[in-house]
């Protein structure tokens, strides 16, 4: 596509329209998947047996059929009744032989917790979990959930599994769903969807208004601001509903605020979203950065309607990546992020925008392909499981279900190499491009430099985190053995990133490029933390993701300030600005100091905990990585010093760039301060009082650690226990 033509014409409108329509289509399929489930998805027999008089002769075998009370197929929704949540499930025999039910149980056990506690299923006639059902009759199974007064989980998503002598059907299941009553049921039940799709709605609104010839540039900006602000509000609301200490032992695989429905039945794809301790901080960060980026977009004056429409599309995509729990859904959102960025950089970028945009999209698509291959490979080798409504499927894209598949136990190989390792590498390659990991990083400086400021902010604050998040969510959860195998490599790559990125940053003259390379360096700490496999390291990765998101966003916003004033980012051209713009100097000083990981600011926790976590296993590598602390101080302080300290050049006073400002550098405007100040406050607060953030991630970190590094027998035994074991042996 010829981008120059694109940027110079108004060809963007239909394009945005098509993209939005595509998204809308996807959404409508998702919604229809739920609504349609009853008439189309229901087995014909359930309703047919009742209404058709001339039934064909029954086959001489038992046929098990499950249905909900209203004849729909599921999931069975439990309703509140005297403090308990109850619903009845009908089990019928549609064959010609008696159906012998040998077991009715809630799926999962103590070893493999799936459902929250205090959920039970039994026959309504009070019998045990076994029963015999005569042909053409049915029985009822009562499913009850009695949550504790202060229940840790507010919802139940489970399956009732029935084993019978219907050998063709095998084990069948019925999905069960319950939700604690809340003040606003609709929003509570669909909060994550609202959060994700509010910006998309805004984008549609902008496109429709443009299509009908109504609305102007300002209204587009207003819509975008409202949509992203709403997303922020929803995210904060979400955070208040979210419990950080919930782990997978509390059921629902440790996820909260789940929405789960069948999306594309023919490909076993589900609309499955939910948050846990790993995604929650990312959701908050994404919504905040989306909003601040939107505020900072005021400087975009060319074709703002197209810009905001694409921006909102991007916001939806980013949020979707962090909440999706179905691999195909994840992939859809992932791709939904790439396209808007391509156009935003390619059409609204700087001098070499086409080069940067092409480089970005080629890298991104190569990564996507590799990722998709891995997804399909895992899908194809997944075990038989149930969809949310109880349908039995042979394969699945669902992350929690895939996490239970023992790929190692299947002894699969790809070209003679262990299946899990190959898939792990494919996934890692896809995510590593996003992080970005040396040597796949060169798209980043180019994209950052050429992108308009808000997109630079988003690239640094959110897009890079998608890579690390993907590794945690998919590589760690689904392929723990391969993760252990590759842990050392991750730490080594992280160290290379830290040192190499810092060295490159030191050599830059363009301030934006410098910050971009510092991103490469900082994300290295995420990799070090990930590779350590210790709780400290994994927590460090999450903390670093949030903190670097905040700090990098702040840095790019601050770089834009000087760029907007005098159209230069060259360190050589600047100097002594502290006397001209004291407030700007103070905030920039804070940002640079925070980026170099000084305690009291949020950057400290990620770096120190990553080193602390990785040290016991990777002493030499970590020692080299610690050099990153020194280099970070050198380049950050160096940049600060070259911009703000030293003598001020009087030649600026007469320069044409400052003419509109009367020959002096004006300090931060209110809008600039409004974008930077919240980030600065967060950086300081998380620096001295990180408990809120640690509280959010505690459960998630525990889960991830227990998967990739399950406790050995020695690890929980104390000195004392060890001693008593020894004593017991002596006796």
């Amino acid at each position, binding site marked *: 596509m010829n981008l120059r033509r694109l940027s110079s014409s108004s060809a963007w409108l239909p394009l945005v329209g098509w993209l939005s329509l595509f998204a809308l289509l996807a959404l409508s399929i998702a919604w229809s998947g739920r609504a349609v489930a009853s008439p189309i998805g229901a087995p014909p027999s359930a309703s047919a047996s009742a209404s058709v008089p001339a039934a064909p002769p029954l086959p001489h075998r038992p046929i098990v059929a499950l249905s909900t009370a209203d004849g729909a197929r599921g999931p069975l929704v439990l309703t509140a009744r005297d403090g308990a949540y109850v619903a009845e499930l009908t089990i019928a025999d549609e064959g010609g032989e008696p159906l012998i039910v040998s077991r009715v149980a809630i799926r999962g056990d103590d070893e493999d917790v799936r459902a929250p506690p205090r959920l039970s299923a039994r026959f309504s006639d009070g019998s045990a979990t076994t029963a015999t059902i005569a042909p053409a009759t049915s029985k009822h199974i009562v499913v009850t959930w009695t949550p504790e007064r202060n229940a840790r989980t507010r919802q139940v998503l489970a399956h009732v599994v029935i084993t019978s002598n219907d050998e063709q059907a095998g084990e069948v299941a019925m999905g069960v769903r319950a939700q604690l009553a809340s003040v606003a049921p609709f929003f509570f039940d669909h909060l994550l969807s609202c959060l994700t799709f509010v910006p998309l709605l805004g984008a549609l609104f902008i496109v429709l208004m443009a299509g009908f010839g109504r609305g102007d540039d300002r209204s587009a900006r207003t819509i975008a601001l409202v949509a992203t602000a709403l997303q922020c509000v929803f995210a904060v609301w979400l955070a208040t509903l979210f419990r950080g200490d919930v782990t997978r032992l509390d059921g629902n695989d440790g996820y909260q605020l789940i929405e789960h429905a069948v999306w594309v039945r023919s490909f076993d794809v589900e609309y499955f979203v939910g948050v846990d301790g790993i995604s929650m901080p990312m959701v908050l960060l994404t919504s905040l950065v989306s909003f601040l980026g939107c505020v900072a977009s005021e400087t975009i004056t060319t074709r703002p309607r197209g810009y905001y429409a694409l921006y909102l599309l991007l916001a939806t995509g980013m949020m979707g990546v962090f909440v999706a729990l179905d691999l195909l859904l994840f992939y859809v959102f992932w791709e939904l992020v790439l396209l808007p960025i391509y156009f935003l950089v390619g059409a609204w970028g700087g001098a070499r925008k086409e080069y940067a945009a092409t480089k970005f999209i080629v890298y991104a698509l190569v990564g996507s392909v590799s990722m998709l291959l891995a997804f399909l490979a895992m899908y194809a080798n997944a075990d038989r499981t149930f969809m949310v409504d109880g349908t039995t499927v042979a394969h699945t894209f669902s992350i929690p279900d895939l996490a239970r598949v023992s790929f190692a136990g299947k002894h699969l190989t790809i070209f003679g190499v262990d299946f899990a390792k190959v898939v792990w590498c494919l996934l890692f390659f896809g995510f590593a491009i996003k992080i970005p990991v040396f040597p796949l990083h060169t798209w980043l400086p180019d994209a950052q430099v050429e992108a308009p400021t808000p997109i630079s902010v988003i690239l640094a604050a959110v897009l890079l985190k998608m890579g690390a998040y993907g590794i945690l969510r998919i590589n760690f959860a689904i392929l723990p053995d391969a993760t252990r195998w590759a842990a050392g490599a991750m730490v080594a790559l992280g160290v290379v990133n830290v040192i190499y990125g810092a060295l490159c940053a030191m050599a830059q003259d363009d301030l934006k490029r410098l910050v971009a390379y510092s991103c490469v360096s900082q994300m290295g700490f995420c990799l070090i933390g990930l590779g350590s496999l210790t709780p400290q390291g994994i927590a460090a990765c999450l903390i670093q993701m949030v903190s670097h998101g905040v700090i990098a966003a702040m840095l790019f916003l601050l770089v834009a300030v000087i760029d907007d004033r005098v159209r230069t980012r060259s360190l050589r051209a600047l100097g002594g600005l502290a006397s001209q713009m004291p407030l700007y100097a103070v905030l920039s000083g804070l940002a640079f100091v925070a980026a170099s990981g000084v305690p009291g600011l949020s950057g400290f926790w990620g770096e120190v905990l990553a080193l602390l976590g990785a040290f016991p296993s990777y002493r030499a590598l970590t020692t080299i990585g610690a050099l990153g602390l020194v280099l970070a101080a050198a380049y950050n302080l160096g940049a600060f010093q070259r911009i703000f300290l030293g003598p001020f050049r009087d030649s600026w006073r007469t320069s044409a760039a400052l003419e509109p400002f009367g020959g002096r550098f004006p300090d931060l405007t209110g809008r600039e301060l409004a974008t930077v100040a919240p980030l600065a406050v967060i950086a300081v607060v998380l620096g001295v009082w990180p408990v809120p953030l640690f509280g959010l991630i505690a459960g998630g970190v525990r889960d991830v650690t227990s998967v990739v590094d399950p406790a050995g027998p020695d690890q929980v035994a104390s000195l*004392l226990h060890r001693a008593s074991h020894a004593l017991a042996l002596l006796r």
Partner: protein
Amino acid sequence: MPDFHGPIQHVTLAGTLWLMLCCPLAASLVCARWALASGSGRAATREAIAIVSIGAMALALAVSAYHGWVLGSLPESERFLLQHVWRLVRFGQLDASFDLALDPLSSTMTLVATGMGLPIFVFAASTMKDRGSPAAYARFFAWLNALVFATLLLVLADNFLLLLFGWEGVGLCSWGLVAFAWTDGASVSVGRRAFVVGRVSDALLVLGIALFYWVFGGGWAEGDYVPDLNARFSSVEVQEPGADSDDDAMAKAKDATSRAAVAEPADRDDEDAESARLPALKGDGLLTLTSYPGATVFMDDARTPMKGPDGQWLRSPFARLPVRAGYHSFRIHAGGGLDDFLVTHVAFGEGREIALSSFGPTVTFREARDQLALRDAHGVATARDSLLAKRGFGSVGLVTVASLLLFFGAAGKSAQIPLHVWLPDTTAAPAPASALLQTATAAIAGVYLVARLGFFFALSPAACTVVALVGAATALSAAVAALYQYDIMRILAYSTVSQLGMAMLAVGASGHAAGVFQLVAQACCKTCLILSAAALVHALPLAAQGEALARDVRRMGGLGRLLPGTARAYAVGCLAMTAAPIPGLVGFWSTNALLVRAFSARTLFVPGALLGGVALVVTALTSFYTWRTYYLAFDGESRGTLDGVREAEGAVPRVLAVLVGLCALAGVLGVSSRLLGRGGDSLLEEWLAPSLRGSESPSAAGGALREWGVVVAAYACAVGGFLLARAHYSGRQREDQWEARERRAPLFAAGRHGFWADAVYANALVALFVRTRDFAAEFDRHVIDGIVHATGILTRALAWLVGRVDDDVVDGAVRALSHGTVRVGERVRSAQTGRVQTYVYVIVLGILALALLQYWLR
């Protein structure tokens, strides 16, 4: 039953420690606000800034003195104030809170920081008035206050992570102060160097902390670290410190454990028999919990938490809560995603104090020290033994590795070789800031840390040896460098490095009290010297032309007549610093204490005599270079025009008088406590003893003879240095060519250039980094992007090739095929002649051919 017994640190809870931090922090923020608001017409006057800053510092001094007094009024074993402010991190086994702790050691340090801070602030308020705008004045005090805040945080920190806050805060403030004249490119780059050197030490310290943390729990199995996944709790029967060295106490402990062993749950088969066999428990026991601040405690499986005396739910930390006699079990809910901890079958009885103590990895100094001192039921110090058994990096003890990492981290702050370069650079800062950095804040942090970790260093003689050696090398080389400097501030800065080296030497020789004493002494005399030198420089007319010119001792001379007060203060400072045998003066006592420790040191392979000898030489050199400065500046003939040189008025002489008084009075700390009817140690040593418990290694028995010998030797060295300096530099005997003579002196070039440390850094390390950096950037631009571009070009080439293949080969093949078919068809058509004979011939020939084929193939 208590699982362990030993001397747990008794903690007294305090609620007011935060005030000490609050004062300088608030003042710093207020000043920073004023500095920013200077342009907007809301600027404060210099007086207001001075009042706020000095007031805050005086308040901080008062709070710190009050807490020192509170500490002193407690029984010796309970001298540990603790305040939990808020939680920082808690997950896995990592637990660190914003906890402030004050024990005698940190109390001494807070007193030094605030006690030296106050006169320096007063001095600064008066001398900085005529330099720069009110905004700069406000900025200066903002940084000074921040520096004091960071230092107080550093010494009050109860754990390593909080210590890092203060540690790096100090580094940041030294950057701000050294680069105070920020429009001057040179001072800015010097400031950055100070910060980056500081970061080197920070990085080493972080690694040291990591190893310190992990080495306390888990273990390395086949190279992989196997961590404990959860922290662990045990009950500990608290004993008085020093009790377990006592045989009686051991016997008593064994008795206690054997009694308690009866309560072993495995033995309990019959309740009645059980109660008959159990010792009767009467009276209330005491329960203490200081780990995991904020944790809630449940007793005896109750579903509601225990209540404290105030009716509130009981949250850690608490101390000495009465618990009724009997056997109790406790559940501790720590939060932060951790499982609850269970401690069962804890026996409480009359006068028994039980502490629920956490084990395993920790970053809290107090918990680490407690763990190491605990012994289990068999009298074995389990934690200590397992710690010592851990090895890595070949077969080096991990304790040694951790200690060395921590030491090199500390060395950066306390300006030990080779990380000392930042300290002479601080002379670029205004003199009061330089004084504060050198004497009361940044530079003392390293020695403080090693003293604080004395209990850990004591486990590794090798690390102690390295500490002592590095200290000795620093002391000696910096003393030589100080001999040949001409800038009076640089002389004093090198002298600071040298004295810090001496303190490190003492600490390495496990004379922690002597090392701390050296710090205190150094703070008193060096502040006095730097401030009087600053007053001197300030008074000179040359100062108007440039600070550097005015500081040159070669341009001074004869100032004693014009500035008698300053000269006297400087002389007292000199006397106090050298080991002049005047009883009140602090240097005499500190040097003697240090020398005695050095001579009796028992390190791995370095004889104590060597360390002592070095210390003696340094004493002589110190005496020589201090008096050299004195004589060059104040004695002899005056040079240049000295019109208008006169004593400063107002606050400056008073500050100097106070400092002189401090120099004189601080010597009291060295007086033997025998005068007060206690043991034989000096007062300071006596005071610090509770903090340094577990860190003293046995030293060679000194004996009075050796002590007196050391005293006499130190005296001789000090007097010798003085006499030599007097002979060479005093007014009457100074040669005209003294500079030329100095140039011929041994080691002149090395000393003059500070052993070329700066040059080595600039030309080797920095150049290496610059080259690597440029290489990385070029590599990124050309190689990596080159590969990317080459891939792109190759792809396009391939696409072109495929296009050509598609056009020529594939399409060509298709074309060729169609042409060929047509042509073949034309040929074949000629075979269809329509004549039957031809067909028959063909058929016959075909059958024949087939038959032959059949025959051959058979």
